[in-house]
């Protein structure tokens, strides 16, 4: 799965996600990627989110909208919201949940539960960052 979130000069947020699905998945299986509010969500007032991981869990936890709700209603910082959304109902909902997010002020949230996440970001004219491992 691949995805992107962005904030433009006019303060508009957007999110996009695309995937080939799980290896050996049942024909016709659809994961979280095309489910608005689960794998992808954007709202100018609050944040934009793109997820990757085990789609069934991301759908059941409605991860994208959960991040939105935590930021909007609890005024939670975006990084904390990503972590909390990925861990909601962890006792009932299994599977890795990984995501990138951006709030309306351009603050970045990145959270992953796997060994690695292929990721990169660039803010304005600052140097860009490309990362894979935790370190």
């Amino acid at each position, binding site marked *: 799965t691949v*995805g*992107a979130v962005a904030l433009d000069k006019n303060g508009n947020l*957007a999110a996009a996600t695309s995937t080939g699905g*799980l290896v050996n998945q049942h024909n016709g299986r659809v994961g979280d990627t*095309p489910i608005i509010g689960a794998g992808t969500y954007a709202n100018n007032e609050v944040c934009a989110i793109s997820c990757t991981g085990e789609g069934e869990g991301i759908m059941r936890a409605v991860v994208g909208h959960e991040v939105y709700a935590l930021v909007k209603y609890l005024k939670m910082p975006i990084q904390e919201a990503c972590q909390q959304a990925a861990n909601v109902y962890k006792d009932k909902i299994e599977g890795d949940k*990984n995501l*990138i*997010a951006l709030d309306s002020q351009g603050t970045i949230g990145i959270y992953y539960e796997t060994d690695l996440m292929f990721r990169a970001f660039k*803010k304005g004219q600052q140097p860009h960052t490309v990362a894979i491992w935790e370190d």
Partner: protein
Amino acid sequence: MKDFVIVIHGGAENKTRRDIGSDLEAAYRRGLEEALLVGWEILNSGGAAIDAVEAAVRTMENNYIFNAGKGGAYTEKYKNEFDASIMCGQTLKAGAVAGVQRVKNPINLAKTILDKSKHVLLTGEGAEEFALEHHLEFKPIEYFRTKKQLDELEKTKEEEKVKEFD
């Protein structure tokens, strides 16, 4: 005027450095950098966030090392099926597509649905009909297939056989 930002991901996995190897790791880093800068250029020149995320994702769909578009995973029946979605935070419009097999860039189809359809999510045959109507690029199924993903499928099937035997 706000400071613009773009963040991208190319998936997350449970693998070690040894599993991936230095050549493939370098290819991932190049692929991420390329996609990031394609999106960033759009933002830097005053373009919209929705166009930047579409372009960044499309760049990764065209790169066989990522699991989207060319190089996507195989299903149990050796097919490639693609899902994608896009959402604009300003208008709250969204477009999504599931189960397409021949559209070169599923993210372009999702964006076309956002722009030109009254619906949000189209699947399978109907989604491909919509893509044809809007002159999106199609590719033969062989275009999407890679040895890397075929090996992943065979390995997964083998592991499941072992589990069943256990």
